Structures are given as structure tokens and as C-alpha cells.
């Protein structure tokens, strides 16, 4: 260690010599840490209830990544379902198709008959 090294070391140590927590801040810090340790030992449901209460009663920071991922999955899923149901509309099954027959009898007596079309007849 040369003189410059000794100078840096000594100056740095002197400049921060008095830097310390006040006893009040130390006590607050210990209290907060103890609270954190207690939270860690909570049951999962107690933790969930506490988080929900915090969320309900205050501004709460929400991590947007999982929310965005969930929204994307929901969007894709809904899109896929909608697309699939649209395909079904365009391809009706035979049992839903009827043939309309109009029969005119004597005295202009008209009858309309709906005949179901069986699968494979279209």
C-alpha cells in the first residue's frame, strides 16, 4: 500500500466515522424485521387474507407481468373458442336441415311440410 492508498483508506474511514443509526431508527428497523419474520411464518391462507386486506385498504403495487400473461392466455383462449364456434355455424349438421315442401290441394288449400334431411343426403 503506497501513500495514496493510505490516504484514501484513512480519508474514507474518517468521513464515515460518525455515520450510524440512531437508537430510535435501530429500534424501528428491528421492529420491522421482526414483523417480516412473523409474516414469513404465517399459514398460506392467513398470508392470502392479509395481502387481500392490504390490497383492499391501500394502494398496492401489482406486478403487471403475470397479469399481462394471464390476459394474453385468456385472449388467445377466447379467440380460439370464438373461431371454433364460428366454424360450426358454417358447417351445419344434417339433422338440423329441413326441406320445405308446399302442397296445394283442392280449393286452394295449401299445406307447408318440413321434411328433415338425413345425414349424407345433402
Amino acid at each position, binding site marked *: 500500500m503506497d501513500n495514496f492508498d493510505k490516504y484514501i*483508506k484513512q*480519508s474514507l474511514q474518517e*468521513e*464515515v466515522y*460518525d*455515520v*450510524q443509526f440512531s437508537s430510535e431508527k435501530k429500534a424501528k428497523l*428491528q421492529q420491522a*424485521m421482526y414483523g417480516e*419474520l412473523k409474516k414469513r411464518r404465517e399459514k398460506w391462507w392467513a398470508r392470502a387474507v392479509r395481502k387481500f386486506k392490504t390490497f383492499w385498504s391501500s394502494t398496492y403495487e401489482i406486478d403487471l407481468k403475470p397479469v399481462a400473461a394471464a390476459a394474453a392466455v385468456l385472449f388467445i383462449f377466447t379467440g380460439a373458442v370464438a373461431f371454433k364456434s364460428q366454424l360450426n355455424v358454417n358447417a351445419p349438421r344434417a339433422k338440423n336441415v329441413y326441406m320445405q315442401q308446399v302442397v296445394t290441394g283442392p280449393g286452394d288449400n295449401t299445406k307447408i311440410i318440413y321434411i328433415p334431411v338425413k345425414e349424407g343426403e345433402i
Partner: protein
Amino acid sequence: MEAEIISGLKKGKEEAVALLVDKYGDRMLRAASAITGDQQIAEEVVQDTFLQVCKKIDSFNNESSLQTWIYRITINTAKNYIRGAWFRKVSNVENDEIASFSGPHADNPEDKYIQKEEGSGVILSLKKLPRKYREVLVLYYLEELSIKEISNILKQPEGSIKSKLSRGRTMLKAEIGKKRGIESG
């Protein structure tokens, strides 16, 4: 002592919390003060660090010592705060100079003014260096840690730490020289 603190924290004992704060509180505060150059931010950094220690104590697996682990969390937290402080600087340029290291007795405006006028020596010069050099210099000169210990804390090869130390030292020397030149001339 370390083992006692770790097992106490894992069991949620209040005495372990007190031991941890007594052993590392002021030490981490001094290191964080030198790295951030701001005692108020340093206090927040250390508080955050210790809360993280409590949250993550179960994941501590003795791969490194408790001291190394706490230093690592402190450095990473300080890094985040420095990034955050940049935004505060942009939004509040006038307070920027007051936000520079104000020391322990700078609670009243007069003391702040005097310290601002006098400058704060090496810490003020250190603040002008890039963070990656600052943290290595603080750990080496202030905390008197070895290259190996710093390498473990920062998770970087020893060679890289040595070169950062050498480059940082040169930059600090130039910065101090510049400051002295301004003061005398």
C-alpha cells in the same frame, strides 16, 4: 455468532434480529453511505437490505458467509436505489446538490450549507466515478476486504476485481487532483 444469528432468524427469534442489527447495521450503513454518497438513501438501502435478509433467510444455504451475503444484498439494493435516484435528480435538479453526501450532523440547513461549501473529500470525488468502480473501491479501502472476498460478494472473477480496483484508483486520483486544483486555483 453467524450460525447463532442464522438459526435464530430461521426460528423467528427477536434476539437474532437485535444481534444482526448490532453486528452489521452501522457497518452496512457506512458502506452504503460511501457507495450512494447520500446518508438518507443509505439508511433506506440498509433497511431494505435487512428486510430482505429476513424474507430470504430460508433460502440462505451457507454457500457463502452471512457477511458476504449481506454485503451482496446491500450492494444490489444500493444499485437499485442509485438508478432510482437518477429519476429523482431529473425531477428535482435543485435538490441534487443537497442530496450529495451530507454526513451525520447535517440535519440543519446551516450545517448542510457549510458541508456543501467545504465539499466532502474522498466521498465527493468517489461519487463522480462510475458505480462499478465505486463499489470495489469502497469494499477494498473502507471495508478492508480482500480481492477474494470482493470477488465473492460481487460474483465476479478476481482478475476483473483487480482491474476495476486499479482503474478506479487511477480515476479517483485524477478526480481528487482535479478537485484540489479547483480549490487552490
